[in-house]
């Protein structure tokens, strides 16, 4: 009897918390809501250390926080969410830790594809962004499977940056632009084989434009982020979205990633709304 009362009380409490959160989001929605939010999930290891637990438990706690934050973001109306799950720099960590994170990612990617997961609840299209060739085969295959399985979803988008750095992204975009331009010139010379292509024409046709490079960036699939959140109070971007964040508010709450909560999201959005006219003015100028 007591267990029934307790679980009823818990359910009522849960419902009222949900209701209050939705009401708060309705108030916030009076003002502009960011279209794209990005998160650097920093502090999982420090969290585990703080609780005197093994390192892996920090990453698992971080995953739970991620699920909550995604839920809040999509409920609020943020259409694009990007997370910095694994940097190319992180491959330099201890092999055991790298393997643990890879195994955890594999587990969680497979979890995402299940019926009852958040992906189906919110109609999320999942995209993996980065140099996927650097990942081990099981993770890469799981990532490709997840992208294919969710390709028809159109409500919201989750961009998971793995094996990613901005400098690698820029280099890749430049390389692909060069290859495309080279192919273009080859086709031009092949179709006009009887004419000599003058050096001047060659110079003009070989100019790579900024729009070519931007088209080939991994992150060209989403608009530029409006807010970039890095937890643990760190003020660096650590090679994340450097190209896309010219007009993006950088927010560094002191909380570790597993400690992040609704209050941080609300604070970030309120600050965004406060300076929205300034950001819009800059966006039109750029």
């Amino acid at each position: 009897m007591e267990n029934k009362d307790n679980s009823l009380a818990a359910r009522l409490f849960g419902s009222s918390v949900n209701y209050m959160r939705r009401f708060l989001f309705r108030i916030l929605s009076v003002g502009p809501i960011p279209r794209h939010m990005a998160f650097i999930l920093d502090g999982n290891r420090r969290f585990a250390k703080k609780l005197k637990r093994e390192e892996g438990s920090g990453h698992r706690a971080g995953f739970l926080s991620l699920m909550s934050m995604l839920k809040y973001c999509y409920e609020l109306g943020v259409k694009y969410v990007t997370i910095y799950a694994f940097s190319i720099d992180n491959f330099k960590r201890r092999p055991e830790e790298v393997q643990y994170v890879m195994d955890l990612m594999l587990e969680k990617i497979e979890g995402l594809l299940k019926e009852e997961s958040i992906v189906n609840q919110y109609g999320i299209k999942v995209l993996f962004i980065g140099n996927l060739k650097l990942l081990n085969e099981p993770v890469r295959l799981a990532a490709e499977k997840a992208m294919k399985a969710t390709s028809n979803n159109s409500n919201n988008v989750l961009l998971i940056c793995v094996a990613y750095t901005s400098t690698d992204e820029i280099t890749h975009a430049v390389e692909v632009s060069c290859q495309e331009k080279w192919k273009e010139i080859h086709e031009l010379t092949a179709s006009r084989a009887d004419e000599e292509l003058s050096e001047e024409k060659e110079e003009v046709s070989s100019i790579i434009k900024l729009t070519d490079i931007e088209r080939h960036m991994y992150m060209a699939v989403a608009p530029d982020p409006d807010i970039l959140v890095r937890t643990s109070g760190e003020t660096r971007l650590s090679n994340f979205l450097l190209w896309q964040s010219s007009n993006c508010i950088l927010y560094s709450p002191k909380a570790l990633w597993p400690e992040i909560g609704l209050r941080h999201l609300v604070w970030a959005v309120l600050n965004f709304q406060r300076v929205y006219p300034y950001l819009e003015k800059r966006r039109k100028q750029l």
Partner: protein
Amino acid sequence: MMRVMDSGGQMQKPNSCGDIGLRLLWNILHWVLNIFFMIVSLAQMLQSFLISNSSYQTLNIHKLKYLGVAIDSEEAKQTQKVARLLEWLTSIGVKNVCLYDTEGILTKSKDTITECQDVRNSLSHQNVEVEFTSFHDGKEAVTKAANFLFKKYYLHSNQEKSTLAELHMGEALEATGCGGPEPDLLLIYAPTRIHLGFPAWRIRYTEIVHMGSLNSMKFGLLIKAIHKFTMVRQNYGNNSY
């Protein structure tokens, strides 16, 4: 009266009591936020006053090898203020500064700023290097580097096309005159904490600190930001990413 926006950014007239109620609550939320920021601003003024009037001997300025300062372009038009900021930085002992703004206002006012009496004296006596950059040194520079690499490795090369690495990009940026050191610390003088488009290749691991608007710049807060940076560097060293 605050504008009510829908998701398309269009102004909407409130069409029910509920909407009016929500709008009122939203306004109250933002008024409370504004009051909070006013209090924070007053506290910062007081803190700056106390810091300025105390002796800040242990600044360990040698830990700050290269300082970046990004200023909102509208605010950068106040060349007197920029000159004063530069003077403060040289008085603290900063040896290498990069001044940045999106539209290139600072690059255009370079002479006005550096020819300012006090600044000129400080720069020459202290051997300070000042660099001026703008948005064109960021994305446009990468485009120039891309064309440089295309000419070198594709157009004028008979060798098999190898994969471009970050090293090649770095070299190309240097070769096209758009390279430059990575600041250890980037101070932002703008209404909010955004890096204003500072060249991407140069802020990979840079600590980014918001100093508020240039209009309300304070010497004490500058000291505080640099001091905090040198303390963090002490704790984590240069290898953290």
